[in-house]
């Protein structure tokens, strides 16, 4: 079995290195094909491993090598395939395989075709390291790796100003969060003496509560950055500057869920500190509704989907924070399928519309793009949580968790969000595919995507439909690893009321969205209508003014502060202090000599200053040693 582990882990690396050989050359179709094949190999190996685990096989544990094992430091570099990681491996390799194949078509005309595959496969490799590592150090390496690849892929079209800006924003925000994570890891190592999951988890119950809280908080800060939780969320929407397959793979299905994975992985820690868990859940619920509200009015197709990702991540954190780790993981998996599908569908639309992103300029595309329409509609149904699609099972489970655990506020918030989700999803579908054609005005002639792209998407379509049926298998799989329990609502009546009520609410939202946006006569908003003038609309449209706020209150002052520090503090104060010290020591010269650096005399003087200071200490020590008897007598006399 270990063989399959190695294949799953290293096939993406081989793929990346292979593609990297051709980065400087013109597009080579075989690069994309071979990369896709290698990723598929990884997927196949993961499937073998999944079957192995499903059949009750022991988790596979390998130690690849020991990086350092001398003195007090021991970092073995090992990988583990257990119930949790195998689920993640399946999600990652499946979605990546689809995205790789899809990209062969999507990036067809891009001159950096080969480079794209190099980055994309490198990302898959980093992600595999992240999920398969058996210790926090390896996780962190993968964590940084996916950050780097995400940076390279968001800024893939680096000659576009906005793309490089977004790439940097994502990278920097993640760096800020990573600092928190690093402190968390440091604390773990400090207190337990190890970074291995098993050993660290075994040691956690012995630590005092405050320490655990700090560890939990700092690790979660790392998770917040990667999973774009408030207030570090702005990068995700801007990251949509990258190519759409990237958005599907990285910013919907895999990388952004790494934060959730971290919390799930560290569940023995969060079990010990339910307060932090509650905070995570509350923040998750807040982000869920917060992001959904921004998606309501946005007019950028990809951004809307990005906000919905954000909102769904909020759901996952809500579940994980309440201790329902398996529910979170299940939603993570289901979400990966339908959200990737949605993004790839959006990619088709974008291709057809020549990179137009405003759904108000589309309309009636269902005739031209039938399959895309079907796929995106089903994905949206799944996202909205309509029975019997994947989203229904996973999302409903989260709502039940909130209800059963008596966190009614979280429950209500998530319920309202479910309605909002349904509304904005179908607002998008309605605007793109229904109503009357508004694109001819802009001189666009849409066409359906390549056949093989649609075929590539079909596994996701199937899974978006049927993934819910695996709920029970999934539960049994992770039951032991995650201490999973069923969340049963005791009274059947309540349960039915809840399910039916939720479904009715969701369907009503969908219906309302259709009615409002699928009708004829929708105009491209020009900022004059009454709704657009309203305060709420503006607030939501401008994303609660948070990016503006960051720019105004963090970026600008920071820039100004830096320049002040440089001009005032560095040039005047620091230099002045240095000169001042030198002057005090060398007042032998009557005239003020040039004390600036660059002057040999000054440099020589600095050396002598150093020597003199050392000598003074030496003399002081010598005198103190010689007169130690007298000194102690003297001090005793003073009453010390």
């Amino acid at each position, binding site marked *: 079995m270990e063989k399959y582990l190695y294949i799953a882990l290293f096939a993406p690396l081989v793929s990346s290195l292979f593609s990297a050989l051709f980065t400087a050359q013109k597009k080579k179709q075989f690069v994309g094909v071979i990369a896709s094949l290698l990723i598929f190999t990884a997927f196949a190996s993961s499937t073998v491993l999944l079957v192995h685990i499903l059949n009750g096989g022991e988790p596979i544990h390998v130690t690849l090598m020991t990086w350092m094992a001398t003195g007090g430091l021991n970092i073995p570099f090992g990988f583990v395939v257990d119930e949790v990681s195998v689920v993640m491996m399946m999600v990652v390799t499946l979605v990546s395989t689809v995205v790789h194949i899809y990209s062969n078509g999507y990036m067809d005309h891009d001159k950096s075709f080969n480079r794209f595959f190099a980055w994309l496969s490198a990302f898959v490799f980093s992600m595999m390291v992240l999920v398969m590592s058996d210790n926090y150090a390896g996780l962190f*390496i993968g964590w*940084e790796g996916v950050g780097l690849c995400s940076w390279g892929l968001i800024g893939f079209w680096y000659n576009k100003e906005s793309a490089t800006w977004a790439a940097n924003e994502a990278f920097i925000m993640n760096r800020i969060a990573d600092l928190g994570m690093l402190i968390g890891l440091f604390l773990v190592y400090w207190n337990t003496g190890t970074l291995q999951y098993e050993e660290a988890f075994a040691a956690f119950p012995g630590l005092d509560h405050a320490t655990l809280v700090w560890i939990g908080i700092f690790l979660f800060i790392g998770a917040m950055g990667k999973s774009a939780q408030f207030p570090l969320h702005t990068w995700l929407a801007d990251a949509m500057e990258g190519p759409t397959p990237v958005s599907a793979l990285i910013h919907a299905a895999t990388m952004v869920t790494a934060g959730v994975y971290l919390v799930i992985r560290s569940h023995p820690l969060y079990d010990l500190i339910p307060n932090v868990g509650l905070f995570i859940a509350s923040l998750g619920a807040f982000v869920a509704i917060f992001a959904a509200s921004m998606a309501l009015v946005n007019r950028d197709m990809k951004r809307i989907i990005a906000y919905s990702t954000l909102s769904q991540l909020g759901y996952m954190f809500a579940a994980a924070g309440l201790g329902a780790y398996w529910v979170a993981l299940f939603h993570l998996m289901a979400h990966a399928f339908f959200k990737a599908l949605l993004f790839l569908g959006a990619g088709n639309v974008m291709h057809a519309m020549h990179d137009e992103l405003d759904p108000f300029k589309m309309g009636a595309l269902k005739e031209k793009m039938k399959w895309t329409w079907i796929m995106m509609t089903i994905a949206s149904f799944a996202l909205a949580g309509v029975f019997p699609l994947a989203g229904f099972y996973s999302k409903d489970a989260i709502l039940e968790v909130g209800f059963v655990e008596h966190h009614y506020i979280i429950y209500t918030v998530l319920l309202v969000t479910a309605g909002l989700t349904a509304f904005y999803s179908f607002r998008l579908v309605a605007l793109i595919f229904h109503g009357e054609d508004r694109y001819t005005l802009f001189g666009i002639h849409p066409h359906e995507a390549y056949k093989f792209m649609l075929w590539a998407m079909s596994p996701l379509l199937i899974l978006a439909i049927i993934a819910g049926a695996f709920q029970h298998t999934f539960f049994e799989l992770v039951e032991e690893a995650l201490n999973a329990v069923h969340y049963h609502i005791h009274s059947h009546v309540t349960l039915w009321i809840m399910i039916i009520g939720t479904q009715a609410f969701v369907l009503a939202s969908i219906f309302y969205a259709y009615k409002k946006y699928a009708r004829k006569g929708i105009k491209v908003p020009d900022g004059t209508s009454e709704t657009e003038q309203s305060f709420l609309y503006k607030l939501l449209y401008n994303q609660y003014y948070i990016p503006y706020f960051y720019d105004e209150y963090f970026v600008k002052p920071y820039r100004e502060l830096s320049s002040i520090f440089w001009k005032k503090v560095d040039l005047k104060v620091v230099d002045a202090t240095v000169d001042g010290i030198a002057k005090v020591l060398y007042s032998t010269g009557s005239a003020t000599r040039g004390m600036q650096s660059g002057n040999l005399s000054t440099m020589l003087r600095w050396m002598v200053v150093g020597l003199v200071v050392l000598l003074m200490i030496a003399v002081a020590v010598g005198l103190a040693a010689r007169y130690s008897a007298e000194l102690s007598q003297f001090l005793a006399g003073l009453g010390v």
Partner: protein
Amino acid sequence: MLEPVNVSLESLNLMTLAPMLIPIVGALLILVVDLFKSNIDKSLYVMLSILFLFTDFMALAGSSSAFMQNGTLLGLFDVMLVDGLAIVSQFIIVVASMLFIPLALTSKRFHEFSYPEFFALFLFMIAGFQFMVATDNLILIFVGLETASLSLYTLIAMHNREKSFEAAVKYFTMGALAAGFYSFGSMIFYAVTGSVEINQIATVLVANGFSDIGFVMVGFAFILASFAFKLSLVPFHTWAPDVYEGSSAAMAGYMSIVPKIAAFIVAMRFFEFLIHSGLVWVEAILYVFVVVTMTAANLWALVQTDVKRMLAYSSISHAGFAMAAVMIGTTQANTALLLYWVLFTFTNLGSFSMLWISRQKKMLPGQNSDHSYEKFAGLVQSSPMAATIMALFMLSLAGVPPFALFWGKMYLISAAVTSGYTVLALIMALNSAIAGYYYLKLIVYMFMKDPVDSRYEKVIGSNLSLSLKTIIGIAAVGTIFAFIAVDPLLQAIGGFVYNSGY
């Protein structure tokens, strides 16, 4: 009437001298070759130098196997001391030299490389450094130090530019002052103990229980001042940025590695017995030096506008970082220092070579410094390969895993933690974080800014030749795949260090 000296040749153990004699013979041979036949292509001298360095390497391998069998060797009236430290550091010196000397084969012609004297001096310098590390006699250390330094001053001046002369004069004058400090310090130790061998000095001092602590401290102050100069610890560092800027990038890279490892070895030999004897003041002083050097140099590096100057300050900071190991003084720390320096060699070799390939013969009108950040702005657009490789070295310098220096930093910091220097470890970690910013600054310039001046596009890489490509390739491979080598290296170095009692 004096007794005739009667020494058996065997007791001299002349083999201990072989590694130093080889480069000296090589240097003389180069001069002789030039005497008979001038106007030989410069690459011949490069090849000769590499050949002799390789022979030197083999000789070292010989003495290392002798060391593994018989332990520490003494030779030449017990002046030579070939222990594990000497062998590992000589390996670093020789290998680093072999990697740097091909940088002379640029596609542009720089006239210093057409002189055979350049290569002769280069080899003399290496011999000097080898003498420095393979002895515990203060006289021989002094001789080795000065042989190396005087050659180095000349090599810098041979670059034959306005700034090179300024750099050489500055370095020379300060070096002379440091030599004064060193000899005065030696004199004090000689006066206190009656010996100039570090072992003997230690024995005498420990035997009389440091009764002359005042004088010992004064002597320590002088010796420390002189080595702080060599190691560029603040405030004895002032030469470093100017000298780096003034000399060619290849030379600057060399200076950031080889002279320092030699000085570190001497510092280990000299300071550690003081620390191990429980002189808290010695430890405290070194502590302050380490912290100030790391921090201050980092802060100065932040405000630089020239990449080479930035790298100069960064080298100072790295030296402070490594000096921490000398202060901690455990076997683990010393091993960590040597490992750090091996990894640092590859990374700095790479980053300075990258500067070297972009070196112009004449500055363009309006250009103030050779390697300003602006020169690298938007490099990714004109040559993505160069930008990526440069970024790789910057990331390694910043200590980003899994690149080379990360392992060095990691191991050094963990050595600090195991020895109970928790605060120091924290300061080191913080400094690595600060350092990340100025390395990232270059990456930002290369990847995210637009080219400032289209003229630079032609300049970058104009100095590139096959041998430079090879060297950069070696450095890049060493930097990326360090993680494979870290563990075996640690074992090997650890064995050498442990068996020589450090």
